[in-house]
């Protein structure tokens, strides 16, 4: 059974494929809260992809997950370059893996912390219902 590789499409990525046939392939998920493109990946190529990354795995939906964000960016770049949603996109991305090795290594050590205000939850935690024993 084939596996799948999903690429989340944010506004920036959507702009990059605007007006191309790829745009029609964007599908909404979670009621439209997110958008994605899905590549169908043959089993052997899917396994080859998993084998490249220590954390990568197939999830219960049959998706290749927990690949580095740098790899997902590279896959999207290849989608745009090749104007394709075929497995060759993954093949090309894997062939260029060396070009993102440093990014991948850095990503396993640090990820930019989101700039969001968390003061409301710190306030809620000031007086927790459950107290230390």
């Amino acid at each position, binding site marked *: 059974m084939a596996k799948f590789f999903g690429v989340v499409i944010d506004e920036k990525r959507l702009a990059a494929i605007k007006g191309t046939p790829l745009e029609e392939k964007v599908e909404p998920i979670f009621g439209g809260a997110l958008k994605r493109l899905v590549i169908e990946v043959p089993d052997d190529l899917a396994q080859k992809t998993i084998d490249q990354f220590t954390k990568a795995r197939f999830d219960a939906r049959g998706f290749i997950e927990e690949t580095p964000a740098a790899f997902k960016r590279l896959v999207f770049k290849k989608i745009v370059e090749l104007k394709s949603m075929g497995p060759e996109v993954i093949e090309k991305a894997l062939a260029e893996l060396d070009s993102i090795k440093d990014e991948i290594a850095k990503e396993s050590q640090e*990820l930019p912390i989101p700039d969001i205000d*968390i003061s409301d939850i710190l306030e*809620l935690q000031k007086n927790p219902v459950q107290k230390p024993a």
Partner: protein
Amino acid sequence: MPEVRIKTLPPPHGGKLVERVVRDPQMARKLMEKCSAVYDIKPTLFKGNPVRNVYREIMSVCYGFFSPVEGSMTKAELESVLERRRLLSGWVFPYPILFDISEEDFKKLGVGAGDWLLLRLKGEPFAILEIEEVYEIVPGDVAVRVFGTPEKNPEVVKVPFDQKHTGYNIYCSLNPIILAGKYTIINEPKFRPPFDRFWYPPKRAREEFEKRGWTTVIAHQTRNVPHTGHEALMKQAAYIGDIKPCDGIVVNAIVGAKRIGDFPDEAIVEGHEMIHLAGYIKPERHLVTFTLWDMRYGNPIESLIHAVIRQNMGISFHMFGRDHAALGEYYDIYATQILWSKGIPSFGFDGPPYEVDGGFYIRPQNIAEFWYCPKCLEFAYSDNCNHKGIYSRYSGSFIRGLINEGVMPPPQIYRPEVYKVVVKWWQKFGYPFNNEKYLKEREERLEIDLPHMELPAHLKK
């Protein structure tokens, strides 16, 4: 007429709660006098990374989570557990509980059957092991027998276990010498925040349930920060109850060494707490707790240790979902539900674990799955919603992938307050998930601190 109301909490597994914690310092000193050697507890390493610390098992034994187990298993007990998932007393128990040391350490200690060994943790006396038997194991063989094989357990095991499975690696990485005997904690540890407010060992959990007037309680097993699918599962599974839905929903997180890429335990327990702090479930009905255990990811086998733990805590029902406590595709995704609906004979269960001799009072609530359906406009249960092709299935890996890419999960997936808890610990540790740095530092710091306690003179040499 059969009794409809559930008026009492279930009895402990094995009939009596184990509690082997000495709180009187004088008694502790007397017990230490009887020890002939001191051993500093070391983590179990796989390829240099900590995958287990036996201290967590000692805690779970001595505080009664694993009742009726009282210590490291003898050879006969180990064989019984591996062969039929039963203790020698006949009570169901799924996993070997073992105190393992290297041959080199064993020679240095010079101890044998009949000796008492003082176990030191973070440089302080922690517990005593009354050595009853010393024997050898072949760790790889134990690992294979723990999890099963496609040949021996064809009902649920799909492929042989290998080094991509964390639980398998734990057993493969054990030292070959086993010291069997009872544990006693003699220096009660103090939990570090945030774990301190979630520490409800069985005795305290039962007291808390009674204080709250709960007689029907359902357990939610977790190793994850809760997404809205988990929340829907908790709320809807809790309708089981008796003449009304369950009085209480208890989240019991498994805290210990985890795989790289999982969320830190701090974010997991606080993420669940946020469900009641932010009002999504009333705090009067929701209790967040944890058990110290280095997850073996054993799906049906793990579900049995969950049943042991939660029944000992006084919990009446247990939610079991798809891929329960699983990792990879080694087991059938519904292996736990097969066990808890008809049994798995090759693992020693001709019927479900609540129907076999030595089994459980706790009852399963086998749940298929929840997904987000844009037509139902809700977190729909898979046995209800028939809107094929438009619903979105939850996936923890997918959500972690979003976070990894810097995308804030939408409220359809994560409550915003829960996501902010993830960010809080991300700020603290510099990373949202377990990485090698976190796991190593965590293993040095552990979840506890130990008060200073003087060693007896004869052990200072």
